[in-house]
């Protein structure tokens, strides 16, 4: 009988350091997936890549993809922070409805637009704070804690709008939804700005590392001196803020706050975008730009289905088929295959 011995020596080589973001960019499965989806769109509709300058802004299907994908991309930015802490925020869709409702009701009752925007963003922050407090202080599982607001929030939004679609003609709110900044639709500009700001803040400071530490092991992080509770509250509040921004865009886009439908099921799209972007639902290492890329992939697929001329009964089947394909591309199996191929290739090149 042999006694079990501890294998102190690692059986495999230690993992290589964090890959250089730009060097490996084009071999990432997400980028390949996006390229594939775009190519299919191009095959279905040859004018897909044509972009023209019309009425002082860029105009084309590719711009539509970015524009329509912006709300989910913004949700995904906030969702990435939450998921990196091993949490999840199901309430972002409802928070979108609340923020749109607040802004619309305020401008229609004669308040200035800047105040309405501030109030909508504040509403989002409060919703996020509420989620954060439920998760940290009351120690409720994130999926349940945010489910509360997912259900109640939409009701709250309906109360604010009294169950009607509140239509407005305020130029500032309409600008947020359909305006143009530097030739780009405002939502695209906002999503890019938010992505850059968030990425710089988490990567140029220790914040990103601390969030990952909390996500990997909250207790260990706390023992290491990280105020895990504060970070969690911060992550949920940020997600609430992002959701409020997306809500303003959704309302401005249709010039009205539709409490029943604004942001409906978008929390699931946002989670999917984060997962496609490679952030694990188990928390830990995360990437905000990749989540945004995930959102763009989802929207490229949606737009592709719209212009393909398939009958609508196929929408969900096609969508889930493509998603499965992307997830297979990302799975460890195909990652190994890909790595073997590229290392073989580079070995060959060295020789």
């Amino acid at each position, binding site marked *: 009988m042999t006694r079990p011995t501890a294998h102190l020596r690692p059986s495999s080589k230690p993992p290589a350091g964090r890959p250089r973001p730009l060097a490996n960019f084009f071999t990432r499965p997400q980028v390949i997936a996006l390229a594939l989806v775009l190519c299919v769109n191009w095959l279905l509709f040859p004018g897909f890549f044509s972009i023209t300058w019309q009425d002082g802004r860029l*105009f084309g299907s590719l711009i539509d993809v970015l524009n329509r994908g912006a709300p989910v991309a913004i949700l995904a930015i906030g969702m990435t922070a939450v998921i990196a802490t091993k949490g999840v925020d199901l309430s972002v869709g409802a928070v979108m409805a609340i923020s749109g409702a607040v802004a619309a009701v305020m401008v229609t009752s004669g308040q200035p637009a800047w105040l309405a925007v501030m109030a909508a963003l504040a509403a989002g922050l409060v919703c996020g704070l509420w989620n954060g407090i439920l998760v940290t202080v009351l120690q409720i599982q994130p999926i349940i804690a945010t489910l509360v607001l997912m259900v109640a929030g939409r009701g709250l939004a309906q109360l604010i709008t009294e169950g009607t*679609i509140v239509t407005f003609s305020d130029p500032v709110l309409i600008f947020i939804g359909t305006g143009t900044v530097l030739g780009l639709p405002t939502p695209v500009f906002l999503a890019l700005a938010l992505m850059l700001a968030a990425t710089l803040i988490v990567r140029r400071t220790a914040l990103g590392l601390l969030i990952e530490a909390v996500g990997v092991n909250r207790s260990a992080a706390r023992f290491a001196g990280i105020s895990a509770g504060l970070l969690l509250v911060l992550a949920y509040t940020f997600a609430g803020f992002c959701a409020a921004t997306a809500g303003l865009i959704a309302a401005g886009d249709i010039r009205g706050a539709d409490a029943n*439908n604004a942001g409906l099921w978008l929390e699931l799209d946002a989670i999917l975008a984060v997962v496609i972007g490679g952030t694990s639902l188990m928390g830990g290492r995360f990437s905000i730009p990749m989540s945004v890329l995930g959102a763009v992939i989802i929207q490229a697929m949606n737009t592709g289905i719209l212009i393909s001329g398939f009958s*609508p009964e196929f929408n969900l089947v096609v969508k889930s088929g493509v998603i499965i394909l992307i997830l297979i591309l990302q799975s460890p199996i195909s990652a190994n295959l890909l790595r073997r191929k590229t290392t073989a290739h580079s070995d060959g090149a060295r020789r």
Partner: protein
Amino acid sequence: MTVIKKLALGAGISALMLSAAWAEGLQGKVVGFSQIGSESGWRAAETSVTKAEAEARGIDLKFADAQQKQENQIKAIRGFIAQGVDAILVAPVVATGWEEVLTEAKEANIPVVLLDRGVEAPEDLYLTSVASDQVKEGRVAGEWLVGTVGDKQCNVVELQGTVGSSPAINRKQGFEEALAGHANLTITRSQTGDFTRSKGKEVMEGFLKAEGGGAGICAVYAHNDDMAVGAIQAIKDAGLKPGSDILVVSIDAVPDIFAAMVAGEANATVELTPNMAGPAFDALDGYLNAGTAPAKFIITESKLYTPADDPQGEYDRRKGLGY
């Protein structure tokens, strides 16, 4: 919008509608109304019109909001039976599972009128059902387009409702029936806009891009007004004029489509009247006072509205109904 203002407006409208049918009829009668909930603007309008109709006839209306749950509706109906009301109105949330509670109402000799949707139960369990004919709605919209376009070649794009929902299926069918036999009218693209403004806008954007910037589209048919409102914005964003470059026809007749008509951006809408209660009360009046059994299925009118029908006036009239 204050509640008082809403009520006053609603009462005013129904006073107008009822001026002919005004009778002692249901004065002082107690009627229970189990409403589905308030999931859409139309539903809210139906509730406020029903309340106004009841008030104008001097009916004591007991209102119960089921919040989208059948169990709540069944509870409410049992409550009405226990209170011994004179009649019950139900807008059923689903089609099945009503036999037991309807039998209880029948045994208590309380007539039940179904509003807006039907149920799968023996017909003798309820007095009558008041609903719109969704196929006809689509047909009226299609006939308007056929008449307007004439002999010109016209490519139509269609914004469908939620896939698999009965209004989407029926309104599509009716529209296709109207277009059948007119070879110059073809539906070139059809996608779902989920009955929402934002999806309607997004789908229309895609259509416009795919059809050469809108050059290949002569008309858009939306299964509800909300999607049409979204489509109108997409058409404007593409640099075209909705209402003239691309004709816009839809169904429901909510206030915002009349606002679009005032601006010359929508061409026609078919009304899904929120006044299901009016015909229901008329039927009850005849049944309770004269003992005449009404028709088993009362179909409400599917009236066509165009910019010639005083859109500003229609907008003002409907705005207060809670759409």
